[in-house]
């Protein structure tokens, strides 16, 4: 061992102090790094969210373009073919002394198909989307589905004009369309209730049906449609959830913040 002399004692004290200072410097460096890292990760998260939003908007824009194109094609191609067919049937009917019931039914069915096709192509058209009003278009959509008489949709709303821009309204409309399609496809309901109301600074939208309901536990294995609805709702800064109604049907609850 070294002799305990004053100089050595001072040296040991000095070295201990030095080690402490070095330790403090390292701790300060670690804390500084951690703070910078938190700021960096926060920035990264914001950028990712922004990127996701832009990606979603682009997807929606592309989808709307595709819809517009599809609507145009339906109107110009299939619509024209059906109209020509109807014209031929009419010509045939005129040349016949007695029109068979089956031909009459075929002509009526064809007329209904043309009407439905026009309504559908209208709902896809860009022009229709540019002057978009969710309430008005939802009414038209409800009428279109109700006219099939396979199902009844009741639509209630407090507002005549929603305090939302055209694009969010289009997104909300697509969510409702998806929800209706899901109802018809999976729950086979008799009645679907759609209601839109405001509560404070929130817009509340409920789509409820009296169908066979769904297994809430099985929601983890969700399909593309539901994921789309969730993405679109989050894009609008809102929330979406699925509940089982007291009657055993399904209720889709959407809440959106209002500016």
């Amino acid at each position: 061992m070294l002799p305990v002399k004053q100089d050595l004692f001072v040296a040991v004290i000095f070295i201990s102090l030095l080690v402490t200072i070095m330790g403090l410097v390292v701790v300060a460096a670690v804390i500084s790094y951690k703070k910078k890292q938190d700021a960096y990760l926060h920035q990264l998260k914001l950028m990712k969210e922004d990127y996701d939003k832009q990606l979603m908007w682009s997807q929606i824009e592309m989808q709307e373009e595709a819809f517009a194109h599809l609507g145009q094609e339906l109107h110009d191609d299939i619509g024209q073919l059906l109209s020509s067919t109807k014209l031929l049937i009419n010509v045939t009917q005129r040349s016949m002394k007695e029109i068979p019931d089956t031909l009459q039914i075929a002509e009526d069915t064809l007329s209904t198909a043309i009407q439905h096709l026009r309504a559908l192509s209208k709902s896809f058209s860009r022009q229709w989307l540019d002057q978009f009003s969710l309430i008005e278009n939802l009414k038209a959509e409800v009428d279109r589905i109700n006219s099939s008489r396979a199902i009844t949709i009741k639509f209630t709303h407090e507002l005549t004009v929603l305090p939302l821009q055209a694009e969010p309204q289009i997104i909300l409309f697509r969510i409702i369309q998806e929800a209706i399609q899901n109802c018809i496809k999976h729950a086979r309901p008799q009645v679907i209730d759609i209601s839109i109301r405001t509560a404070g600074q929130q817009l509340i939208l409920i789509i409820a049906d009296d169908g066979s309901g769904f297994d809430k536990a099985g929601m983890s294995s969700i399909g593309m449609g539901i994921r789309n609805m969730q993405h679109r709702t989050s894009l609008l800064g809102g929330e979406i959830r699925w509940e089982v109604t007291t009657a055993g049907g399904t209720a889709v609850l959407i809440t959106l913040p209002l500016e």
Partner: protein
Amino acid sequence: MNGWVYAYYALLIACFIISLFHLEHREVKLLCVLLGVSIITEIIVELIGTEGLGFFIVYHFFVVLEYSLITIILRSGIRDYRWRLLMGISIFVFCMVSLFYSFVLGGWRAFPGINITIESFLVICWCLLSFFSITPDSEASIFRHPVFWLTLAFFIYFAASVSVNAFYNLLLENDTTRARHFFAVLNSLSNYLLYIMLIKGVVCFRSNRISL
């Protein structure tokens, strides 16, 4: 030769060999040169020293080279242009001042104590700057950052060297043998820490590459 005191030579060689496998990183390349120069210097000192010749001249050149390489390594982790410029200028100034002092004022046969002390203070300053300039680029902790380990290695080594050198002459006056023993123990301890941390730094370069 005291075996355990000088066993850090093994660590020095191990560090040099490990760095040879990671030469794709610029910092490791410079570190490899530094370690190679250190090995050559130690060999020359051992050879000349045993023959009783003035081997201090080797240190006069080694100090200049060591400072230049360490400063360039630490400079690579700093993004601020002004600091980088200052570090670059300091290399040139230090080299001029150190060589002037060695060959004009102090003489090349004397131990370059002043040069080493100035070098140590400068490196400690750059280490402090480097510590607070480490920029996070992922979720990885600072302990996986190679620059952190390289900086810590140089910081501990030079801070320990400065403090030991400051007290060495004072202790020598009281008890030469024990003072030299004390110096050798602390010197080897700081060397062990230096090479262990340098190895950790080089390994972190590899980990970063894998995670990418």
